[in-house]
């Protein structure tokens, strides 16, 4: 029995929850590593500015973690509430990484609590920084385990189906599925990239708004460097993801690239619009590029969408999502490269208003790229919830009232989104960096006396 409206509303509610959660989750995964790098640079160069940077980021991080934790709890339970049939089936094979994720999260939570409340409690800054290592590991491992579950939905393995029953289950084989390496790496690298660029965007904004403090210049330069490194990594891994898709989920790649006919030496379509009849307008074609993306060989044969039954291909609008993700990624790589080269070469334009504004937009743009990437990943798997095994509508709940719950959760996310933004901006406004540095200097002088 399938409850059509429950299926629809379950999809909407899951999409809303994930879209909201992923903003805080991405920041939650990336920021601990960045705080660690800041504190490390501060200790190594004996530069108080970087240590203060680490400390100030930590304060804001607590707010985003809180929202990330509660929305993570929500999606964790919604998996069972909205997709009970899916969880009943998949739980038998892929429960292990879900379970391990709670441990990673537990580990992170404990050490974050300790780290947060022990600033200056140790005489040696290094000891305090050590407490951050479990936080960063825990945060990244949470992402690894959860992404493994998502990878399993794309490339399920580690079991056999005999007469409708799952047999011969191998939890580790299920975890190390073919989608896992590229997906996990892409999620981690893009989380580090986005976190660095969001912080760069804040520093650029402060510089634009009149502050000329070295603190922000150091922050902007460091974040741009990190942003560049991780955006290059994200792009390289993205290329590997293309090769994974070509081999294991060709319909997803073909739909994302509007590639209809199987052919050798396939060209890559960028931008463009499509009507209902496979007519593509205003596009840019790069000869052989799709074959290179798919197999690293310009002559390789790429399977087209027409090879698949009509009811087993994902919606074609994922091409737009793919474009948004890729173009923002390339744009941010360029911006961060220009900035770094500009600082080294002493180019003047990187200090001009327009370039600062580009850096400011980099933060929100990166978050849009993350959203587009996840929509691409999820919509691109349709019509399956477990590719080749269970269709999305078979996994959904049959319960009524999903629509009402959607309204309640939308209100919740609105409250949390506005609340966290207000609290964060108030927090930093009440204690600007100039004042904090002055306070600390006064404190230190007090110690001497």
């Amino acid at each position, binding site marked *: 029995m399938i409850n059509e409206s429950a299926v629809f509303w379950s999809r909407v509610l899951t999409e809303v929850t994930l879209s909201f959660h992923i903003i805080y989750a991405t920041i939650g995964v990336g920021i601990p590593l960045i705080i660690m790098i800041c504190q490390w640079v501060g200790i190594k160069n004996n530069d108080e500015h970087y240590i203060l940077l680490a400390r100030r980021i930590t304060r804001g991080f607590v707010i985003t973690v809180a929202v990330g934790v509660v929305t993570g709890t929500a999606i964790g339970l919604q998996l069972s509430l909205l997709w009970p049939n899916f969880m009943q089936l998949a739980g038998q094979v892929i429960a292990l990484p879900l379970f391990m994720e709670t441990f990673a999260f537990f580990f992170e939570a404990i050490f974050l609590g*300790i780290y947060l409340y022990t600033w200056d409690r140790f005489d040696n800054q290094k000891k305090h920084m050590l407490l951050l290592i479990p936080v960063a590991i825990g945060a990244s491992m949470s992402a690894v385990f959860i992404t493994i579950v998502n990878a399993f939905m794309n490339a399920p393995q580690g079991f056999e189906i005999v007469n409708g029953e799952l047999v011969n289950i191998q939890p580790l084989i299920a975890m190390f599925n073919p989608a896992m390496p590229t997906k996990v790496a892409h999620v981690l690298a893009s989380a580090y990239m986005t976190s660095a660029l969001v912080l760069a965007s804040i520093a650029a904004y402060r510089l634009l708004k009149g502050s000329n403090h070295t603190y922000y210049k150091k922050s902007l330069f460091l974040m741009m460097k990190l942003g560049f490194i991780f955006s290059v990594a994200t792009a390289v891994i993205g290329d590997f993801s293309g090769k994974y898709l070509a081999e294991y989920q060709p319909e997803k790649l073909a739909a994302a690239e509007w590639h209809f006919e199987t052919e050798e030496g396939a060209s890559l379509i960028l931008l463009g619009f499509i009507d209902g009849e496979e007519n593509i307008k205003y596009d840019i074609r790069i000869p052989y590029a799709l074959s290179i993306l798919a197999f690293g060989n310009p002559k390789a044969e790429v399977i087209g969408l027409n090879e698949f039954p009509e009811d087993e291909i994902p919606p074609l609008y994922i091409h737009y999502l793919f474009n948004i993700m890729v173009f923002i990624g390339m744009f941010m790589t360029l911006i961060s490269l220009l900035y770094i080269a500009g600082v080294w070469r002493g180019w003047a334009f990187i200090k001009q208003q327009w370039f600062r504004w580009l850096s400011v937009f980099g933060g929100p743009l990166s978050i849009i790229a993350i959203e587009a990437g996840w929509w691409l990943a999820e919509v691109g798997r349709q019509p399956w919830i477990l590719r080749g095994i269970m269709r999305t509508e078979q996994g959904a709940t049959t319960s009524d009232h999903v629509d009402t719950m959607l309204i309640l959760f939308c209100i919740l996310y609105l409250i949390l989104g506005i609340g966290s933004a207000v609290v964060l901006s108030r927090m930093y406004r009440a204690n600007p960096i100039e004042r904090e540095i002055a306070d600390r200097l006064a404190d230190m002088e007090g110690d001497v006396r």
Partner: protein
Amino acid sequence: MNLEVLGILVLWIFLFGYVIVASIDFGAGFFNAYSLLTGKAHILSDIIQRYLSPVWEVTNVFLVFFFVGIVGFFPQSAFYYGTILLVPVSIALILLAIRGSYYAFESYGSRGHKGYAFAYGISGLLIPASLSIVFTISEGGFVEIINGQPVLDYWKLFISPLTWSIVLLSIAAVLYISAVFLTWYAWKARDLQAFELMRKYALFWAPPLIFLALFIIIQMEHHNLDRFNNMVAIWPMFGISGILFLLTVWLISKKRSLGLSVGLLILQFLFAFFAYGISHYPYLLYPYLTIHEGFTNQEMAIALVIAFILGLCLLIPSLYLLLRLFLFDKQYVTGNQKDYHA
């Protein structure tokens, strides 16, 4: 021991852990809000803040652990409970989300915001109320299987006196556990005013707690005779729990051995919680789902148990460090320390 019994035992222990730490947390939030209302904020706020601050996130993990674990060990529970609990658990989730994030907003963003504190205090009572409904539903009688799908009868649940008794019990238990713990914590912190006030609250909530617990057992006879007989069969455990309860109340009223009274309190709930759990065996959802039918495959079960043991090796030392630095650190508890918050 069967793997399924081991699995449910581990989960039950974690759920018990959640009941205790979350009760302390929820009750503290309520007392904090109540003290703002009655103008006694200066007495309590400090002590409650100091306890809650470093541990709030850890509390939530116990709950996450329980529900991820139960779906892992008993995937069929995702089907049954997932389908019928959409509304009550969604409501609990929304309350948990508001409470957790607004706690962070209040304590790291704008301290002393009254609106946040009230929202925080009230939601602390509504969350156990909404979560306790799961226990009521598990007793059977509220779920029917229609076309192979479980369907919850909301109206029957709403008018059942059992539902409301369990809701009230959960609230009374939250306030009692929290008050006893904070009595001890205030005493350790050498905060006499807070100590006297919390002690008063602890003694106030003791009679309703035990009255409601007995009332629920009596009602079970009419609600589900099978389950009632199982509960009666295990009466010595409930009896020990009752004796521990009396000892705790006696110690607190005499202001003696407060550390011990917290220990007895935990034991009291441990006995009651496990007596209830054992009497519930083998049902996860009466009468449709037992731990034997709903159990996952052997391979997954073994993998989960190994992951659990490895996880504990990581967690127990970390938890110990957390407790040593904050809960058991004299300097920290008495507030004689500089503020080391980031």
